[in-house]
């Protein structure tokens, strides 16, 4: 909320928050800790703040002038003045960002002094908002549904399988720029249906249904080799000998099932051969193969094998060609019949692989392949094995036969499972309910203990306790208006923030012992070192910098790069999926580097390095980079690269399909780097095209048209902020490649920030941002990170929390670790309003409408 909307267009949630506060104050005696105007606020306004506003703001926002519908001297009462939280928040933002009062030529000295700005922000934060820096109001996060990414990762860690939720579930909505926002992660009947189906599929795949099973090994045709041939594709005209060895370690009976397939081209081919199978040198069967459209052969043998190596071998012996159409050979041979299912499946597979049917008559042929060879055994029950994953869910092995002992085991298994699945211990009554679900199944005839537990696991995966991140406060402080969240909640907050997945055993163990808070910093360090922290890097940069979009943004490389477009090995113009992923990796690795090496976050804007391989370096015009590996490359002294603004990712996602968009690029910097976005364009904006008339028939450059557009009063206030930033980046085309001219005319990147700092080109722009607007960058990044970490939009009462992190960053030269820990140790991350505050807010708001 704070970062995007400086203007007043979006006051509803502030209004809501305000009403909420009034109500909370009325209902709950304890709520004085929550933010709300101080009793002295009005008096101190008239004494300290009004004079400053009168001096600097009344020209436009007072004395009857109400630019932008803002005037500071027309409040009907002090109560109304204090109620305008959105106004004060915008004022704070605009004054601190140097946007207000607007800068005028020769007027540089007539700006508020640092002391005056401090006075104003102090009043807004501590008087009007009534924030208590000693015990900040942490707000409250709604129970969050797991989004698709979190769901997938959680299933991976909980169940040990990969469930592709991005295909199976509909896309999540995002709020405040991120897709982990609890309030917009809604649940519909359709989605629940999908959760139920997913629970079933997942348990089916992950949880064994039996305690013991016969070992089963399946080899594909590809694994049969000899003299350059493989069992994947054999031809009647080519003699071949192929084999594969199976190791067994127990003396017992084994079942060997062989499935072969012969397949002819569409047109008749006279090819003819024998296919001979030998097991351990002994001939087992001979198939006579002639042309047929399709034939499946199955053979099954039960063999007594001794420990050691056993060889299954096939030989193709070409025979003289046949002359007639061997129409008699259809259907099946061997010990079992062709399955229509198998036929269907194989057809399917072929069609999917090729993607489309090939045109033109292919050469005729008679082909064979070893579809599969399966060795099942040892067959004697005493040699059966424990299925994969059994120990993961059933630590004590198979269930005891005794009914009571079995129920006790069920309870044990499910207690361990639900503690992980629900990320906190499950209360006993519910656990017993779950045991009953399992028992109802495993007491049925023909059902195993494992199937029963599986059913209870399905129920758990469909439970709101799994699907939602429900938080609780520390019971010791539950009576206070503001309380620390309990340690299990903290474990989940940490793990979903830094890993996008459930807490691991160590976090849960620490939480259970109440020691997580004590070990917060070492745990955060451990979590960042864990490879799972890639999820944070990927999803945070993916959304903050829109790096996700670079893979799909429609950019036409042919148009953008012209005849010089680099081509890949297939002769296609590069900037295909692989190239786009490369750009995305650059951004991710770059961000990761700043985290891992604990660099200043300002290096995200400007640095003397980036991550390149040969292709990307060539695209960027950086010399002397060879090899495919993306790696840290120190840039030449005069390089324009270094910093996210000069990376293909950002440059492409802010472009149109055939050309750059200086407006989008400018907006991107304001929104995501400086944190001072302009309001959305007003209705009835004049067309950019209108400005064409000024050029009397001549085709103007984009920058010229923008200049005329800016001259229009209605457009200027925002475009003066956006355009110079975007135009500074005009040297980069829509794919991020360097250029000196556009439409045959030289590019003029020089400009000025609306706060007055001048720059000659993008190199200087980066330096100006780092040198002059570091605080803005710190604040914007803090806001983005806090929004992502909390899963809620920011509110007025978060102002001081953010300022506090920004101060820490300023003192620590912007170190990334300070930012991360600042967010993690902040009140809104560590604490929660206790229940009553949220009581009637929603109904109040909806009635008001």
């Amino acid at each position, binding site marked *: 909320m704070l970062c995007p909307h400086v203007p007043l267009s979006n006051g509803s949630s502030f209004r809501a928050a305000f009403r909420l506060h009034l109500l909370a104050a009325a209902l709950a005696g304890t709520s004085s800790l929550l933010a709300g105007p101080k009793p002295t606020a009005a008096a101190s306004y008239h004494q300290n703040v009004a004079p400053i506003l009168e001096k600097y703001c009344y020209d436009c926002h007072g004395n009857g002038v109400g630019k932008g519908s803002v005037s500071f001297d027309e409040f009907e009462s002090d109560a109304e003045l204090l109620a305008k939280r959105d106004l004060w928040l915008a004022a704070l933002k605009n004054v601190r960002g140097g946007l207000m009062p607007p800068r005028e030529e020769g007027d540089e000295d007539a700006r508020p002094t640092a002391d005056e700005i401090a006075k104003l922000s102090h009043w807004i934060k501590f008087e009007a908002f009534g924030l208590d820096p000693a015990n900040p109001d942490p707000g409250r996060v709604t129970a969050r549904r797991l989004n698709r990414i979190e769901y997938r990762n959680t299933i991976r860690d909980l169940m040990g399988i990969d469930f592709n939720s991005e295909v199976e579930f509909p896309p999540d909505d995002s709020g405040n720029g991120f897709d982990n926002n609890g309030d917009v992660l809604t649940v519909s009947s359709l989605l629940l249906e999908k959760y139920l189906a997913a629970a079933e599929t997942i348990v089916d795949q992950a949880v064994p249904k039996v305690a013991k099973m016969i070992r089963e090994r399946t080899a594909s045709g590809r694994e049969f080799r000899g003299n350059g041939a493989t069992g994947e594709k054999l031809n009647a005209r080519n003699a071949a000998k192929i084999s594969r060895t199976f190791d067994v370690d127990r003396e017992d009976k084994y079942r060997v099932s062989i499935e072969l397939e012969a397949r002819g081209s569409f047109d008749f081919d006279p090819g003819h051969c024998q296919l001979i199978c030998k097991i351990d040198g002994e001939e087992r069967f001979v198939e006579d193969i002639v042309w047929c459209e399709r034939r499946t052969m199955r053979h099954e043998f039960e063999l007594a094998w001794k420990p050691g190596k056993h060889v299954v071998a096939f030989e193709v012996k070409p025979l003289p060609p046949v002359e007639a159409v061997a129409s008699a050979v259809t259907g099946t041979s061997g010990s079992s019949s062709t399955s229509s299912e198998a036929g*269907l499946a194989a057809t399917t597979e072929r069609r999917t692989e090729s993607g489309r049917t090939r045109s033109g008559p292919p050469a005729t042929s008679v082909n064979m392949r070893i579809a599969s060879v399966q060795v099942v055994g040892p067959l004697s*029950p005493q040699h059966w094995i424990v299925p994969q994953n059994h120990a993961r869910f059933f630590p004590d092995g198979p269930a005891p036969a005794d009914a009571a002992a079995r129920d006790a085991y069920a309870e044990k298994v499910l207690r361990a499972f639900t503690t992980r699945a629900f990320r906190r211990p499950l209360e006993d009554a519910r656990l017993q309910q779950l045991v009953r679900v399992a028992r109802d199944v495993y007491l049925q005839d023909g059902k195993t203990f494992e199937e029963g537990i599986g059913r209870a696991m399905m129920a758990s995966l469909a439970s709101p306790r799994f699907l939602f991140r429900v938080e609780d406060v520390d019971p010791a402080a539950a009576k206070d208006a503001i309380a620390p969240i309990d340690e299990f909640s903290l474990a989940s907050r940490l793990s979903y923030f830094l890993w996008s997945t459930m807490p691991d055993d160590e976090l849960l163990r620490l939480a259970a012992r109440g020691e997580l808070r004590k070990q917060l910093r070492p745990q955060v360090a451990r979590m960042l070192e864990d490879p799972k922290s890639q999820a944070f890097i990927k999803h945070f940069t993916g959304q903050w910098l829109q790096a996700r979009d670079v893979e799909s943004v429609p950019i036409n490389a042919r148009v953008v790069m012209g005849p010089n477009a680099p081509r890949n090995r297939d002769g296609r113009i590069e900037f295909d999926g692989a190239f786009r992923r490369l750009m995305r990796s650059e951004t991710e690795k770059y961000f990761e580097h700043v985290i891992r090496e604990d660099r200043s976050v300002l290096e995200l804007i400007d640095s003397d390095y980036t991550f390149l391989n040969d292709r990307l370096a060539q695209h960027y015009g950086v010399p002397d980079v060879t090899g495919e590996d993306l790696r840290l490359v120190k840039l030449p002294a005069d390089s324009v690269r270094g910093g996210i603004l000069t990376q293909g990712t950002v440059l492409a996602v802010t472009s149109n*399909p055939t050309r750059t968009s200086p407006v989008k690029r400018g907006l991107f910097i304001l929104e995501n780097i400086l944190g001072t976005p302009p309001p959305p364009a007003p209705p009835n904006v004049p067309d950019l095209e209108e400005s064409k008339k000024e050029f009397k028939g001549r085709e103007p450059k984009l920058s010229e048209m923008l200049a005329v557009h800016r001259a229009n009063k209605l457009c200027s206030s925002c475009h003066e902020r956006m355009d110079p930033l975007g135009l500074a980046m005009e040297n980069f085309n829509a794919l991020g490649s360097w250029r000196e001219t556009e439409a045959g005319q030289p590019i003029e990147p020089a400009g000025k920030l609306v706060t007055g700092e001048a720059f000659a080109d993008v190199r200087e722009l980066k330096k100006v941002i780092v040198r002059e607007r570091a605080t803005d960058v710190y604040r914007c990044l803090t806001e983005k990170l806090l929004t992502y970490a909390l899963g809620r939009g920011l509110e007025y009462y978060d102002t001081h929390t953010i300022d506090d992190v920004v101060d820490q960053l300023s003192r620590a030269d912007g170190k990334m670790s300070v930012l991360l820990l600042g967010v993690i140790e902040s009140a809104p991350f560590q604490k929660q309003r206790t229940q009553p505050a949220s009581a009637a807010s929603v109904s109040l708001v909806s009635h008001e409408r």
Partner: protein
Amino acid sequence: MKRPIALSREELAAQRHLALNRRQFLRGLGACVALPMFESALRPVARAAAAGAAPGALGVTPSGAPLRMAFVYFPNGAHQAHWWPTGEGTNFKLGRTMQPLAGMRDSFQILGGLDHKNATAGNDGAGDHARANATFLTGARARKTDSTDIEVGISVDQVAAQKIGHLTRFSSLELSCDAVRKAGRCDSGYSCAYQYNLSWASPTTPMAPEPNPRLVFERLFGAGARGERQANFKQRQDTQRSLLDFVMEDARSLQRQLGRADREKLDEYLTGVRGIEKRIQRAESFGAVPDPKVETPAGVPSNYGEHMDIMYELLAMAFETDSTRVATLLLAHDGDNRAFPQIGIAEGHHYCSHHRNNEELMNKIADIDLYYMKHFAKFLAKLEEKKDVDGRSILHNSMIVYGCGNSDGNRHTHHNLPIVLAGAGGGTLTPGRFTKVDSRPMSDLFLSMTDRMGVQGLERFGDSSGRLKGV
């Protein structure tokens, strides 16, 4: 194959486990076939008697056949010069965009003069794309927020679904061809929810549409290969019912511990659970699931045209099998900027739509409109071919709105919206005309449609001013 003589329970289970694994493997393969053209071999399982029904009866045509309504949304408005026909009434000449419909003039009408004033800027400033999308089926003004408090209005399809949904296995179907979403923010301070959903079950609950053809198919007809689907469908339903009891109780016990805002999230969940329970009960009352004689379609095709075709096809199948009578299809969200290389357009749609009277861009936008229309025409032709229980075509017994909440994409206007109303509503509509009205709310058309669906007692909808007569 030799076996030990007496198998223990565990052994039997082990055998079954093996068999099951094999079956799943095959099933998995069956699921990734490209969808071939469907033959019209499905038998409608319409429950409505073909004998005739009282006028205005719930969800049926005057002949008693099922009456369907669908809403198809195309993005970014239409190029005005090529969209609108010349002439009026039955005497009209189709413009360039509607040429693909030329062969079935008598099966649709073009409506001129319908407005969505709640999609205009009003006091809300920029965000015409988000509003166009959000207002299209709701007739309501979307609350401008990118945060927690999204709110617009219940959509017309859901009004109908809530009244007639019990007549079919699915009360409604929400489809979309937007499989990938943009990261970060959407249009000018509006939540992405406004742009990616057409259908709203309540003013605050969007119905997320499904973009994956395979999942739509499996939901309608069951997973697996032909012949296995009915059993799979039933088995899944049985398991689900056993789970629902537990999770319902679980949600309630959890709800007792929670604060208000969290309780509301749980309410959403409980509503969802009840919805599924009802659907399962209802499904059982309809007997066996139809098993279409086609392969299950694969996932999202990379070719956009193919994707549209498959979604249209699934919609047609759902109507033909009377699996639902209410559907929405969002071809792409308003503001969509996809390029159309398949027809030689490298620029994005949204970019082209702001053509600023540039001839080349105007031509491109008209080509894109035409491309969309071609696919819609194919869909109508398919519905025209399929025969319903009363011997008429499915199209005859349908009301299909094809349109956009933006009229002129270049200027973001929301009056005189580009709307085609296809089908004869079972004889209650008079297609074959260019019907012009003098600036009436689009919501009036919606009321006229819900009347025909037999929805009783709906006085107003969205910003309606009355019923749209003479359609």
